[in-house]
């Protein structure tokens, strides 16, 4: 708890210091949004052991839902963000049966097929803008217009500062949720399901039910992050939700250390900021991160920050 508040305060302090630097704040927001999405993936993959190679797809479902609703309805934007998460969770239910009935490599195949399916679907569906995608209106929550710069007296800050505050808030909530989940009986049950389904079933753990819960909650977080990201960027297109992006999410999880929210936060920052700082590698990022993950799996499978033992007492 204290560590979390400190981290949040640090992020805020850095953002305030960089308050006039649009690009820096944009990057920081993207990191926070990706952290939120990876927290969702972590519940699925890191805890319940449900593989999901369609992370970017669920991110996209949230984004497209937000775009469609914001363009053609008067639903308040705060609700649209939540509906984006719910839509991703709902889309996940298409996969629930095949993912539950299969495990390991089969479940991987199912999510990969889903990722490729949706990518093509976004691309060929004219109502969703085809390959060009869709534009989103400005995000408004209550009286706050997110795309106006902040000017209070002599205090001036980029409009991205608002996005930082919002994404920090959501990421912090997501963080608190994941930490509590881990330190609960549900967390113990999920771990047991991941490690040994047969042992779990012998002791009454309803394997199917908890996999569904983990998969759905995870997709909700991913979709929520996707909706927020769509608003911030102001436009969405199928290219942003490719299979390669899904693999980047998975890479972040594996780099950080499966099951460790702190690890994935650090890894999100590295994976997102490194290509921006070193423009040379930007073009090579899929290749680079895939290669790094191979090395991690071969030589340090627990990731950079291995998950510590659960402490309930």
């Amino acid at each position: 708890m204290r560590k979390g508040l400190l981290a949040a305060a640090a992020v805020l302090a850095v953002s305030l210091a960089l308050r006039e630097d649009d690009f820096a704040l944009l990057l920081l927001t993207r990191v926070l949004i990706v952290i939120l999405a990876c927290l969702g993936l972590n519940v699925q993959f890191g805890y319940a052991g449900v593989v999901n190679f369609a992370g970017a797809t669920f991110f996209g479902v949230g984004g497209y839902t937000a775009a469609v609703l914001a363009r053609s309805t008067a639903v308040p934007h705060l609700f649209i963000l939540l509906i984006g998460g719910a839509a991703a969770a709902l889309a996940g239910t298409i996969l629930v049966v095949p993912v539950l009935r299969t495990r390991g490599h089969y479940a991987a195949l199912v999510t990969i097929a889903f990722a490729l399916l949706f990518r093509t679907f976004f691309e060929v569906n004219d109502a969703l803008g085809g390959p060009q995608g869709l534009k989103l209106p400005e995000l408004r929550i209550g009286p706050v217009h997110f795309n106006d710069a902040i000017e209070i007296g002599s205090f001036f800050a980029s409009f991205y500062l608002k996005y930082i505050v919002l994404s920090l808030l959501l990421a912090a909530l997501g963080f608190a949720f994941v930490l509590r989940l881990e330190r609960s009986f549900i967390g113990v049950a999920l771990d047991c399901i991941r490690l040994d389904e047969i042992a779990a079933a012998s002791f009454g753990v309803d394997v199917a039910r908890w996999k569904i819960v983990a998969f759905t909650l995870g997709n909700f977080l991913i979709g929520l992050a996707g909706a927020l990201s769509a608003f911030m960027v102001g436009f969405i297109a199928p290219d942003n939700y490719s299979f390669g992006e899904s693999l980047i999410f998975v890479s972040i999880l594996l780099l950080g250390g499966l099951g460790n929210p702190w690890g994935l936060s650090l890894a999100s920052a590295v994976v997102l900021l490194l290509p921006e700082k070193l423009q040379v590698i930007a073009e090579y990022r899929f290749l680079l991160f895939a290669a790094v993950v191979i090395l991690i799996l071969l030589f340090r499978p627990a990731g950079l920050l291995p998950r510590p033992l659960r402490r309930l007492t």
Partner: protein
Amino acid sequence: MSALLRCRDLSRAFGGLLALEGLDLDVEEGGVLGLIGPNGSGKTTFFNVLTGFFPATRGEVLFAGEPITGLSPQVVYRKGVARTFQRSRLCLPLSIFDNLLIGNHKHLDHRLWSNLVDRRALRRQIEQTFAEARELVRIFDPPLADRLLEPASRIPMIDRRRIEVCRALISRPRLLLLDEPSAGMTQEETMRLMDDILQVKSRLGGLTIILIEHEMTVIERVTERCVVLNYGRKIAEGAYAEIARTPSVREAYLGLE
């Protein structure tokens, strides 16, 4: 006195192979039954059918007078049947206490609200289970009871066996199924483990045990009655001293004559 567990004509086929055929078996409440037989004679299959991992192809199981045939492993556990496995199935990366929590699953609150939002009841249950776990493990090995927060991967084989038995016992089942607890242990260690289990049994009162075991000394010492399986069929039943003299058993099991 009525039997706690009653199996009638219990059968299980895998393709054409009859792993269990027409097994009739009764276990009295509070009894210790030994289940012996050569490798592949259907002992573990019996446990798997009993606990709902494999549906029976024929026959019926009554537990405390109630049919449990065809129920899922989860429901069978909730009704009071707990088991150990031949090959250790502890969750090694988790702490010992986490493993014991899994054993106590049916007594714990798994609602989202009390796990994520209002966690007072959760904390209370953690403390209570922790106290129970310490007390239980102390019967088996006092120093081990002080190491519950260490990862299960860090303790030696004998302690893993102990924790597996504790995981099965902590929910206070009525029927305990032990699948070859001696695997990977010395005879002395097994004897001690069995004595400790019997001690728990006497404390709990009413615990019934079915023990699959290859170590005949263990069977002789702790069981009151034995059932011998061969090719999925029951070939003998009785006290160990009796069946050890039965020629068919000696032939099938000990490979004599």
